[in-house]
């Protein structure tokens, strides 16, 4: 009898202890390590935008955090996605299956990002996207397992178009890349221009990708519009801007509005070609003391000034690590909830807030590319003209198609 009682009592105790261990394990850091995978284009067209620089920014964040969270070391590994969705998805799947990755950072090409977020959702891991432009990532493709940090096409189109019309650029000619991304961007710009009282007088669609923009630029010149809007990206934008410079578009009085232009593009093309270009950016290295101080530390390591994407990788990783520290967990849902509760104000994000659709909204900036005469150095490229408040810049939740938003 006593024997039975004893065994019963001890088995209850064991069961209770096991249950306790199970509950406390949930609130712990899995495997005693925080594992961060950095996935980006390391060798292709987006190399300078994100690439090895983003990885360095991530390492800086981990070092500045002290290399460990609540005693659990932070492990960082990286891979090149070669801008291919299957390479990206495959890599992350492998990280999940064999290395138990906790968070995936970086991600540029939208096809890679959407593929990766599908894998993350299926395995309940967290992704923080810094490189992608597509606003669909937190709209129809939103998942409870990812966060979009730096920018998307909505504020780029919105901010640039509205500010330009307000400054008197009220007639537009649209140069659009002929695929879904270009069409969406063109639609956004047209809507904003018309709502702000401007007019789109014409447009032309070019195949994706295009090398020779001469005939399109000639049409744009012939249209008599004050502003030529470039609803394209990457090499197409670079080619269009270079061709416009050769045709003397800016000297003749028309202005170019780049919707997807990054610091590295302007740096590569040079001020002679890009001067006067208007664009919206999420961050600029020289925008204030805090940004400058961080950028100079980055410059010492990479010998280049950071793009907004690279700065965003640092900022988002810091916010993530703080959330892991505060919650004592690396579980995706727990961490994401905490990240949503905390406002974000650092050298990168001002008035930042993480919405339930995964969109981190923060102040955006309208910038103009300096003329060579005004520039004081190799990286002195932008002049910030105006700040676009966070709440105005991004797509309002009331227009969201995200399954996490109740409309």
């Amino acid at each position, binding site marked *: 009898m006593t024997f039975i009682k004893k065994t019963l009592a001890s088995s209850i105790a064991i069961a209770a202890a096991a249950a306790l261990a199970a509950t406390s394990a949930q609130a712990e850091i899995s495997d005693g390590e925080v594992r961060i995978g950095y996935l980006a284009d390391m060798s292709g067209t987006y190399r300078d935008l994100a690439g090895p620089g983003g990885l360095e920014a991530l390492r800086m964040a981990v070092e500045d955090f002290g290399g460990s969270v609540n005693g659990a070391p932070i492990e960082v*590994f990286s*891979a090149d*996605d070669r801008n291919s969705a*299957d390479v990206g998805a495959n890599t992350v799947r492998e990280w999940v299956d*064999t290395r138990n990755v906790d968070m995936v950072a970086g991600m540029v090409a*939208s096809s890679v990002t*959407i593929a990766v977020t599908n894998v993350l959702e299926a395995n309940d891991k967290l992704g923080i996207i810094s490189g992608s432009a597509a606003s669909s990532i937190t709209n129809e493709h939103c998942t409870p397992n990812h966060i979009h940090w730096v920018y998307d096409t909505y504020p780029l189109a919105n901010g640039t178009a509205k500010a330009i019309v307000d400054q008197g650029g009220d007639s537009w000619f649209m140069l659009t890349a002929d*695929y*879904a991304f270009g069409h969406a961007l063109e639609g956004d710009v047209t809507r904003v221009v018309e709502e702000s009282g401007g007019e789109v007088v014409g447009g032309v669609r070019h195949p994706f990708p295009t090398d020779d923009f001469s005939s399109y630029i000639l049409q744009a010149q012939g249209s008599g519009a004050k502003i030529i809007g470039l609803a394209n990206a990457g090499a197409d934008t670079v080619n269009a801007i270079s061709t416009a410079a050769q045709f003397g578009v800016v000297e003749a009085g028309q202005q170019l509005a780049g919707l997807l232009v990054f610091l590295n593009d302007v740096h590569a093309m040079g001020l002679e070609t890009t001067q006067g270009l208007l664009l919206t950016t999420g961050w600029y290295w020289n925008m204030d003391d805090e940004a400058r101080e961080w950028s100079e530390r980055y410059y010492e390591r990479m010998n280049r000034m950071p793009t907004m994407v690279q700065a965003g990788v640092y900022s988002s990783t810091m916010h993530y690590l703080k959330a892991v520290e505060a919650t004592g967990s690396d579980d995706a849902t727990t961490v994401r909830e905490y990240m949503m509760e905390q406002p974000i104000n650092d050298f990168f994000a001002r008035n930042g807030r993480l919405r339930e659709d995964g969109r981190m909204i923060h102040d955006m900036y309208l910038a103009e590319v300096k003329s060579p005469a005004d520039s004081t150095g190799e990286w002195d490229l932008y002049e910030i003209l105006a700040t676009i408040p966070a709440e105005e810049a991004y797509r309002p939740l009331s227009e969201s198609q995200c399954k996490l938003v109740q409309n």
Partner: protein
Amino acid sequence: MATTQTLTPVMERQRRANMRRNAFYLALIVVGLLAPFVAYPVFLMKVLTFALFACAFNLLLGYAGLLSFGHAAFLATGGYVTGYLLSSYPGLTPELGILVGTGAAVLLGVAFGALAIRRQGIYFAMVTLALAQLMFFFYIQAPFTGGEDGLHGVPRGDLFGFISLRSNLAMYYFVFAIFLIGFAIVQRAVHSPFGQVLKAIRENEPRAVSLGYNVDAYKLLAFVISAGLAGLAGSTKTIVFQLASLTDAHWHMSGEVILMTLLGGVGTLFGPVVGASLVVSLQHMLAQSPMGNWVNVILGLIFVICVLSFRSGIVGEIIKMYRKNFR
């Protein structure tokens, strides 16, 4: 009786060669069956799908002497059709999806082949490239492909309605079976009278015509089989990765399969398999190493070295060495 006796040593040698070959195939199948316990299954599935793609391409280049520069179109067509069907009609089983995807690639192969085989050499390559680019622009515009975002969230589903493919191991054996079927088709085609005629056309087309063969029909059939197998690879790949993207339709993919085939050994049965494994493994390993930035440069260097120093590819060189030293 006398004739049988004189033939015996020849037949005996033939029998031994067959036995050796069968033992070799059996050993490879055993390796394939055990592989997922050693390496990561999804990676192996990627190798197998690309190996099948390269085998399909090799059937055309290695045995019919036709250099197609547009095989990405068939890979992508198989992938997109299967992906679209499986994600739009949830009741559909994966094997049906693969069948329809392969069928679509076969139809496209008939259309492209009928046009392309009218020309030879560089013109043939240019025609196939142009047609494949046509498909690329179609896929970037067509609403069902998701444009540059790609087609995502394709369910793996249940094979024949009752074997769940959600486990990587089950998926691997399914892919392995598909690869074996595809490889067997190539093997049979090459060693059949049909394959002999193809080789004759490759060596000397006018002579094949003068012997009374309907050369165009043979070429077209080879083209269609090759397109169908490429589509099969694409369909399978879509189910493995649960996505189809423009990468598969891009002309880079047509170039990559040429690289795989030439590296492994064109006109050998195992060359494309070795080449595909090598290229995919290199991409995979380099992408995660600090040398990641140099993937394309390293692959380029390997290709240059291969073309300059061992022209018949890795397997081609091994076969040459074997023949020189052991026969």
